[in-house]
């Protein structure tokens, strides 16, 4: 059965999806009348926080900078946006440009919904972009997007609390990092976890905070990379995970919570806890940087600590892709090229959202937000997740994704690596087998 026929029948789950598509206002309604009519470009993004406002401002700036192209930008939470994108695509109403992360490219490229030829026609040059960002846009040796930015984990830290604890500089290795976290963890009676009588049930300030969801897996991913182990590849047909090699990473994160007691159990929002002074350090991304204007205490960021043999930190890059269209429209293709070229060259403004622009010219001319330097320092060793065709299933943030189950078994349930690593392997292989 043809997919259109199935969609047209309005069957099952499809009407719900098609309903989403109907809400879009239509990506096909391009301004292709006379030559003086501006081309309309429909642009989907997945930003929902402060970065949404920044992207909207950039689009508005582009729209007012010329009269030939008008960009209609809309943004939903990433997963919902992708569903809407695919529903629109099926309805022959595809958006003209779609933002996504590099690791998601493989899945959409394999579905055949992305136009690599249109990206190639932009004639972008590798030298114009940060290498790590550029390389992330390539899948099966073909370009699939315009690099927009790079983001990653680092550590936010409260300089006032550091000073009060007598810590003069940010710890950079395992021993000093754990020691600092212990010093910074203070219970209601002023005792630390290393003191006799420390009351773990009544802690005023924790030394460290981090997300207990898929981001906990990202930390484990960074830590195994620090030990030189990375079995996750873009072309894996099955995976074999070594519990012994993942044990140090799992053990380190679990010990911080359950043994050293320097991390709140089941923490929901480390960045909010950090801003409230409830945690002294927080592992989080550079997308949080734009939300620090009203924080009263002195703070800074530091690169993710080196716990293993070498430096490594989890990161991701955002790219702008061009979906395939049912009808070739030269005028619109030219409009897309104009917009994406402008976006790449003017992404210095995007740095106001805390992101690191992927375009070198924008990168060099950006106004740096306070705290961005630690992230920039990590560019040389940031590790992306692979753009595997099943990446959105394997690395999904929603249950029962393999990495989420693994992460929560680790940081919430304190299960040993010998149990959770084989389960992660089995869960991933079950997806890869389909």
């Amino acid at each position: 059965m043809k997919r259109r026929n199935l969609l047209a029948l309005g069957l099952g789950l499809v009407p719900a999806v098609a309903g989403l598509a109907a809400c879009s206002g239509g990506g096909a309604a391009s301004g292709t009348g006379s030559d003086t009519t501006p081309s309309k470009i429909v642009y989907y993004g997945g930003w929902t926080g402060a970065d949404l406002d920044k992207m909207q401002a950039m689009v508005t700036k582009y729209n007012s900078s010329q009269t030939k192209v008008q960009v209609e930008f809309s943004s939903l939470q990433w997963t919902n946006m992708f569903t809407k994108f695919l529903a629109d695509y099926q309805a022959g109403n595809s958006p003209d440009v779609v933002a996504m992360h590099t690791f998601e490219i493989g899945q959409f490229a394999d579905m055949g919904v992305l136009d690599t030829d249109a990206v190639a026609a932009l004639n972008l040059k590798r030298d114009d972009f940060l290498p790590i960002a550029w390389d992330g846009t390539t899948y099966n040796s073909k370009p699939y997007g315009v690099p927009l930015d790079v983001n990653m984990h680092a550590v936010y830290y409260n300089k006032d609390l550091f000073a009060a604890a007598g810590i003069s500089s940010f710890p950079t290795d395992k021993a000093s990092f754990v020691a600092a976290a212990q010093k910074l963890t203070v219970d209601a009676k002023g005792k630390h976890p290393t003191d006799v009588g420390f009351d773990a049930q009544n802690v005023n300030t924790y030394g460290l905070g981090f997300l207990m969801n898929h981001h906990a897996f990202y930390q484990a991913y960074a830590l195994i990379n620090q030990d030189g182990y990375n079995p996750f590849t873009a072309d894996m047909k099955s995976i074999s995970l070594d519990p012994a090699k993942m044990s140090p990473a799992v053990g380190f994160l679990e010990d911080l919570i359950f043994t050293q007691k320097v991390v709140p159990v089941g923490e929901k929002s480390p960045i909010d806890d950090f801003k409230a002074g409830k945690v002294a350090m927080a592992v989080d991304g550079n997308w949080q940087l734009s939300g620090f204007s009203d924080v009263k205490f002195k703070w800074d960021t530091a690169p993710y600590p080196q716990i293993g043999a070498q430096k490594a930190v989890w990161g991701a890059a955002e790219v702008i892709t061009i979906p395939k269209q049912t009808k070739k429209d030269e005028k619109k293709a030219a409009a897309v090229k104009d917009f994406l070229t402008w976006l790449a060259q003017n992404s210095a403004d995007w740095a106001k959202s805390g992101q690191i622009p992927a375009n070198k010219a924008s990168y060099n001319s950006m106004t740096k937000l306070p705290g961005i330097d630690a992230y920039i320092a990590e560019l040389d060793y940031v590790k992306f997740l692979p753009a595997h065709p099943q990446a959105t299933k394997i690395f999904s943030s929603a249950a029962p994704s393999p990495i989420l189950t693994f992460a929560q078994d680790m940081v919430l349930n304190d299960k040993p690596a010998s149990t959770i690593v084989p389960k992660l392997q089995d869960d991933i292989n079950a997806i890869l087998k389909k």
Partner: protein
Amino acid sequence: MRRNQWKIAMVFLLPYLLIFSIFRFIPSVGGLVVSFFKWSLGGDPKFVGIDNYVNLAQDGSFYTSIRNTLSFFVLTVPVLVVASLLLAMLLNQKLAGRKVMRTISIIPYVLIPSIVGIMWNWMFDNNFGLLNYYIKKLGGSPVFWLTDERFALIAVSIVVVWTYIGYDMILFLAGLQGIPKETYEAAEVDGASTFQVFWHITLPLLKPVTMMVSTLTLVNVVQLFDQIYVMTNGGPGTSTLTMVQYMYTSAFTNYELGYGSAIEVVILVLLMVLITVQNRIGNRERKVA
């Protein structure tokens, strides 16, 4: 029924039947059709026969979602039916402020579910939440409501009971007010105790309402999505992964529309079985009575 009456009835029924057909019946039949396809939404659908159902039968996460859904049902439906009946009986008494209390009871039901989820997320927060604050004040150890797999489903169940109790109470209240006062007066004259009145008059006469409340509650609970999505997103691990949650993830996160539709069909069958069993029990008790 005479022909004219039929026509009038159809005029009133038609808008509902039209909406029901477009948004409920046709999609349900459609879901059945899609369940026989492998379809990523991005590519062409491919007919795979019963493969999706065979895969479901071998899917550990699917069994987890069934177990969680049934646990969720057991944790919420009996509590909701009993508690809302007791609340309705209380608010049916001539107490001062009962009208205000009735209104307050229904407020959780009319709140937007995602707001309810966010609000309770803060209440349940391990370290800084209101519940653990009082537990610690009373000398207890904090409960990791939403992050410990032993408690997460219970925590979500508490929120569901809090949300639906007012709605179920209103239904019971309507039932209670439909019981003729003369029946109670006769029982009083005969010297029946409060318990005897409840057991032999109130409960039997409320049976149709009880059946309706329990059926509606069952459907609401099995189909519940919003609060779980906001509060736990199926976690920690898979401890609050319900069938509806799994259907959503399969269809809209993993882009396996056929697989998601197969789960939808199983949910429909499960609901039909549970409602049939529930009705059978109700009817059997009615016959015995």
